[in-house]
């Protein structure tokens, strides 16, 4: 794939700007909360502006090729370089991470979860931002790994310090799980490095030479990566950290977790595992697909069993990422396009849902579905937004969710050459049934929370959506609708890149 190197400073700036903010925050006195919030806000705004600049200068006619590429020595000894760039796959996620962070910051301006301490909170959030953005632009396995891990600690603390009752258990679980995955992932990275002649960790190079590795070796290396990424996605049966983490995390944490962190895993599959190890990918695809559909049904059932709104949304992520993984497992441009679109869509929608859950918690002081109800009478705007997001989440055409879901199902009808068609068609039908379940649990949730008459007594805190929330949510809502109505806004960027990525499969 050819590289476009002009403006090669943009990405670095966009990625590390938050760190600048962190430094400033560190020297701002803890007491002066207004200043702290202002710094955080400005930093994230600046970051987004850089992102916009990136977007504007992105050459959409060559979305398939790496752009803004920068490459310099980093750790010469192990032949690892500071090598970054974006193509049509990374760009949307890269920007998404920036925007989501900004929105979360805005939301946090008047929603600092207990026990307060905005300074630490924003510092962590900005570090997180750097890690996320970095992961999406890294073109070098080691660099990728470093960024990939960089997000762990901040999220660990975000959950552990600002989370719910079970926070300590949840955060530790989250951490150990992810770490377990990434440790094996690192081993796999090294293995592929040596098997390709210990020349370079650069992903393009590995894509060139990875195919040369003997198949059985590939399969093992892929196994390592698979665990690493599957934990992050999370795929059944590595998902159990997710409900706890999501449920216990503060709203902001859940939003970032859902909107971006989960994408690191799927992105890893699309960017690294599959292109570098095509033969192994073919071998693994049926299993991945299988786990994906299991995840779809399983997650849906999990949702149906929930009594806690937030936990339900968390479980729905398992199901939705199942669709994404199904798309990926087909190894066809069609499926992977769907998957990448699905990542963005899920980021927007589920992020939004978690925002809502947070606001509900703040208003009703509970997320027990049985204790909620009649939201539409007390906070109609909130209720309708919840409605919209549920609809989007259950894959209603005309909203973003649909474009991740339907094409994914569609693509399973004929997967890439070398994959068993019958198996994947079975998957297709199961996945299609999954959509019904999705409708089931989401509408059921909606019916029980929004409809009916208000339950309980103390509703004096129950007020409708306030300005901060509107500002923080509006972009997401607009995006949900916009991408739903005009999906080509994304597809036109993703598609060339995906085809480039899947060249090994004659995609």
């Amino acid at each position: 794939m050819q590289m476009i190197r002009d403006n090669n400073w943009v990405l670095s700036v966009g990625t590390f700007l938050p760190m600048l903010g962190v430094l400033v925050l560190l020297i701002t006195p803890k007491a002066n909360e207004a200043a702290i919030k202002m710094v955080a806000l400005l930093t994230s705004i600046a970051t987004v502006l850089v992102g916009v600049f990136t977007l504007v200068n992105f050459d959409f006619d060559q979305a398939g090729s790496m752009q803004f590429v920068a490459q310099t020595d980093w750790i010469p000894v192990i032949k690892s370089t500071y090598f970054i760039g974006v193509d049509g796959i990374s760009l949307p996620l890269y920007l998404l991470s920036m925007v989501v962070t900004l929105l979360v910051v805005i939301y946090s301006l008047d929603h600092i979860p207990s026990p307060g301490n905005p300074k630490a909170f924003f510092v962590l959030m900005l570090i997180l931002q750097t890690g996320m953005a970095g992961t999406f632009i890294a073109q070098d396995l080691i660099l990728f790994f470093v960024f990939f891990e960089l997000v762990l600690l901040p999220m660990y603390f975000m959950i552990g310090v600002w989370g719910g009752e079970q926070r300590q258990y949840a955060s530790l679980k989250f951490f150990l799980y992810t770490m377990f995955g990434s440790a094996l992932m690192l081993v796999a990275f090294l293995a592929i490095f040596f098997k390709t002649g210990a020349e370079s960790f650069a992903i393009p190079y590995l894509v060139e030479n990875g195919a040369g590795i003997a198949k059985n070796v590939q399969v093992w290396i892929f196994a390592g990566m698979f665990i690493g990424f599957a934990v992050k996605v999370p795929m059944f049966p590595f998902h159990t950290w997710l409900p706890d983490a999501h449920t216990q995390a503060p709203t902001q944490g859940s939003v970032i977790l859902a909107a971006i962190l989960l994408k690191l895993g799927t992105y890893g599959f699309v960017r690294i595992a599959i292109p570098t190890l095509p033969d192994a990918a073919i071998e693994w695809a049926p299993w991945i697909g299988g786990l994906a559909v299991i995840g779809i049904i399983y997650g849906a059932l999990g949702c149906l069993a929930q009594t806690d709104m937030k936990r339900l949304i968390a479980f729905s992520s398992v199901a939705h990422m199942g669709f994404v993984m199904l798309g990926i497992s087909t190894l066809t441009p069609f499926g992977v396009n769907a998957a990448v679109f699905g990542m963005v869509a899920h980021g927007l929608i589920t992020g939004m849902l978690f925002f809502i859950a947070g606001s509900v918690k703040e208003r009703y002081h509970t997320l027990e579905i049985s204790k909620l109800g009649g939201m539409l009478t007390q906070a109609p705007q909130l209720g309708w937004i919840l409605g919209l997001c549920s609809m989007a989440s259950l894959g209603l055409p005309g909203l973003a969710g649909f474009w991740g879901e339907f094409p994914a199902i569609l693509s399973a009808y004929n997967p890439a050459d070398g994959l068993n068609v019958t198996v994947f068609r079975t998957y297709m039908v199961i996945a299609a049934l999954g959509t019904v379940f999705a409708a089931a649990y989401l509408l059921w949730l909606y019916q029980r929370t929004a409809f009916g008459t208000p339950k309980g007594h103390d509703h004096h805190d129950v007020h409708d959506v306030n300005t901060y929330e509107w500002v923080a949510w509006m972009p997401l809502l607009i995006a949900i609708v916009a991408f739903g109505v005009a999906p080509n806004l994304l597809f036109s960027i993703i598609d060339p890149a995906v085809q480039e990525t899947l060249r090994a499969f004659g995609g």
Partner: protein
Amino acid sequence: MTLLALSAAAWTAPVIDYHALAPEIVLAVGLTAVLLVDLFTSERNKWLLSVLTGFSLLGATLPVLTLALHDNSVRSIFDGRYVVDEFSLVMKGLFLLAGYVIVLLSSSHVEEGDYWRGEYWFLLLTSLLGMVMMASSRDLVSIFVALEFLSIPAYMLAAWRKRDLRSNEAGVKYFLLGVFASAVMLYGMSLLYGVADSTLLVDISKSIDLDGEFAAVQALAVVFVVVGFAFKVSAVPFHTWAPDTYEGAPTPVTAFLSVASKAAGFIALVVLVLTAFPEGRDVWQPFIWVLSALTMTIGNVFALRQTNLVRMIAYSSVSQGGFVLMPLAVAGGAAGEAALRAVVVYLVVYAATNLGMFGVILAVSRKTRSGDIASLGGLFSYAPALGVLLTIFLASLAGIPPLGGWIGKFAAFQALLTDATPWAYALAVIGAVNSVIAFGYYGNVMREVWMRPVPHGDNTPIVTPSSLQIALGITAIATLVLGILPGVVLNFGDMADLVGAFGG
């Protein structure tokens, strides 16, 4: 008759390259100075001693630098028994700087205790001198001497708090087991000498041949020698002394033991296996493989169940030792250079991180006066700086990028995968799993620091003496830099065929 023959041989004084010996000489001068000054200063001016110690350490680093910058040629004196090459220089630098940081850590602690300061600094310097020598020794005798040189003062340091039973116990255990181990090692050495008819490592490497007639003796010898140093690096099951000693010894001493003397043990081990036993790899590779696996795992599972902070760290450093052993388990093969690099890098990073952590612990214990992990509760809320620093160090130990620790683990894995044998992969996976388990207790401490309430809500801030602050600053910066720009250290390991350089 042989004696006659020997005496008959004309004796020529060896040429001594004083530049090469400069660091040792400076240290020697320094420690005598400390001894003297201690005699002639009044209680009020004892603080001079720490300053003096610090300066002599820094002073000793100067020649190290000059040697490093001078030229890359290997300086070998006493016909190859004492070699100054980059490897030894790196390690000397490491010892001296670590020593300096330890001085910074201890000064306030020592000043406040009502104990024998002069002796403290003197012993510290002596032990460091032993280590510096160890870095260059390429002969059984010099290795043995260096070993005792660095050990004996360490024994005394461990028991330094005379009135404290725990301190005594620590000292005694350390001492008895230490001498026992070194005795076992010596037995091995004697056999080696018998087979090789020389104490020079290079000659020994020539004579070792596991298919030859002396295979059994050699195997036995190799095992015993390795055991001797496995004890030093507290590899399971020779680690038993470590937790007790670490817990009982004064905290700065613990820091010193867990970092410097461990490192010394490792370089001796590296030197031996790489220069003396390359032919014996069929013995020591599997042996170290087992030790490494055991060390990582047992160390972790023990650490998981500790409630005492220092003891937890003791076990953690045991399991860290396992990670350093990991690359050595394949060092005999093609991965030799990678393994060596891994050891060096790991030791450097580990030194910075662990010292930093002890720094925080010292600072905190000044307030809490307790060794319990629970005493760290809510540290972040009343001492955010210390909290964050501790987090950084713990995370680095857990090997989380972009903090130093990860590059050490990375290098270790890299070495293993360079070897690319099934055993290597297996060990790599064991290591990976252990690095996860390890977070179990590191994370537990973090949890205390960040997520737990302050014990009996005592929120008085902590005053950290400037020396401690400096120490923390140095270590923290080192940890971060090593993590973000690992090239800095990795280049040490990158020098032209280090392995070959040992020969001298």
